[in-house]
């Protein structure tokens, strides 16, 4: 036997039957509901006899640049099927009701999402940062965390051929008070004409870079 992955439309039908206006989006694998309705839908999915989503496999957050998606991978051990529920939250000050009351396994995972992505979960009994310390500037897993002062944008600078039009476009965000990063040349700034791209030239290039970096920060 193998686990059946219930199709999105099938799950959406049952959810719509119970909550007529809760479903925002249906894909082949998942059902998306707005953040405010997630606890009611979750409890329905858990207690429904057909869907029987008693086991929460996984809870994670995804930062799509204009909104957040909280993904709940649910499954039923007794019936051996699995399906995915998603909750959509706004990008500014995202607040999602906590499903800790529905599945206790969500407790630690929601703390992790809060810590690394900055999504607050209301009614969580113990919403504190878990891996990073209180007072850490920012939330690392957000896509805009990388824009540090000085223009430091780490990326695949070793494979420029993968990005013919420049680096992957990150949104321009004002830098937070994160510690200053060492200046690294940006890809969109062509190297100085005197530098040669050969490896032997790299040894000479270093003093050039640091001088240029100091000039940038000044």
């Amino acid at each position: 036997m193998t686990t059946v992955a219930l199709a999105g439309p099938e799950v959406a039908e049952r959810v719509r039957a119970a909550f007529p206006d809760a479903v925002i989006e249906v894909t082949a694998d998942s059902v998306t509901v707005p953040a405010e309705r997630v606890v009611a839908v979750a409890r329905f999915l858990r207690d429904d006899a057909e869907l029987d989503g008693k086991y929460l496999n996984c809870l994670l957050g995804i930062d799509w640049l204009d909104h957040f998606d909280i993904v709940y991978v649910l499954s039923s051990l007794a019936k051996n099927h699995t399906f995915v529920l998603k909750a959509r939250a706004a990008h500014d000050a995202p607040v999602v009701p906590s499903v800790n009351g529905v599945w206790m396994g969500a407790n630690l995972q929601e703390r992790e999402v809060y810590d690394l992505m900055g999504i607050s979960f209301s009614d969580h009994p113990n919403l504190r940062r878990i891996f990073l310390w209180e007072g850490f500037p920012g939330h690392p897993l957000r896509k805009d965390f990388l824009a540090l002062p000085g223009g430091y944008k780490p990326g695949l600078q070793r494979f420029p051929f993968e990005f013919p039009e420049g680096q992957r476009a990150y949104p321009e965000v004002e830098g937070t008070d994160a510690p200053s990063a060492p200046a690294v040349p940006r890809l969109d700034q062509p190297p100085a004409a005197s530098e040669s791209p050969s490896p032997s030239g790299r040894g000479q290039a270093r003093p050039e870079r640091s001088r240029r970096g100091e000039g940038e920060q000044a």
Partner: protein
Amino acid sequence: MTELHTPPYVVNIGPQHPSTHGVFRLKVTLDGERIIDAEMVLGYLHRSMEKLAEERTFTQNIPFTDRMDYLAAMTGNLAYCLAAEKLAGIEVPERGSYLRVIFAELQRIASHCMANGTFVNDCGAWQTPLMYMFRDREKILDLFEMTCGARLTTNYMRIGGVAFDVPDEWYPAIKALVAELPDRIAEYEELLLDSEILLARSRDIGVLKPEAAINASTSGPLLRGCGIAWDVRKADPYCVYDRFDFDIPVGHNGDCFDRFIVRLEEMRQSLRIVGQALTHLPGGPVSTPVPLALRPEPGEAYARIESPKGELGFYLVSDGGPTPYRFHVRSPSYINLSVLKDLTVGLSIADAIVTLGSLDINVGEIDR
């Protein structure tokens, strides 16, 4: 006679632990001998692997998975490669799948040797069972070293198969291992399972009820010790597990002793699988060629395996680029910790240490 009122006091267990669970800190509030509150402090080993993985190609992320659960690197590699293959729609050749199964099961035996050895060490036996189990673990690590050059962070699986084919000296070594290991496991059972001291230390300690286990998303020996017969290898077979005949050990009570015997029996069942896989090992290529910077179609995929610690899953999101858009690890040790507070409240510290040992956590996987 009035009761003597003593204020509760806080004791720090960790982060430098004498047991080998890693840098894990547990702040327990004690009232005399009993624990009334337990608070975990994590993050001492947080290496931001989920963020780093967004900047590296899918193949470059495989060494990260070695270092998450560093005691079970093969299964970490396997789960990630399965997720990437599901995302990109890549098929694995037969020989590659069989080799994956063999190495995953060998890794399970090695990880359970460590887990059981340190569990009995936490119960107080001065490393004697640990040293015995390390004998067998050393033989398995020698097999790993023969194949991929590394004992611990093996980096052996690739998207599309495995990295190298096994050398010639591997076959007699693994046949010798499969022949002698069942006797060793029987020896451990004979020496340990009738010890009244071990029973006194671990029976009825840290009892987990089945409903709570499912609700807290526990998995692995923690779930099977409660009496729930669930194993991802049987429920959702990946690689070629559906071709092998093996049993799932299930406990009775959900206490520390049950998890211990479940792990011992799982070692024996893994040997069964390895034996069957060796007899039917086909020839052919060991992996499908995959481009250096694999660019899967935009989409999401969640793949899970039964790792020695529980259900290890990877949720990968691709946006068409060479790197994952989101790389999330469903780490079994982290989620199994959800029940730690409920299990330890009411016990004494010695029992809390034994319970923590029986959960078999790995901080590399918890903190990532």
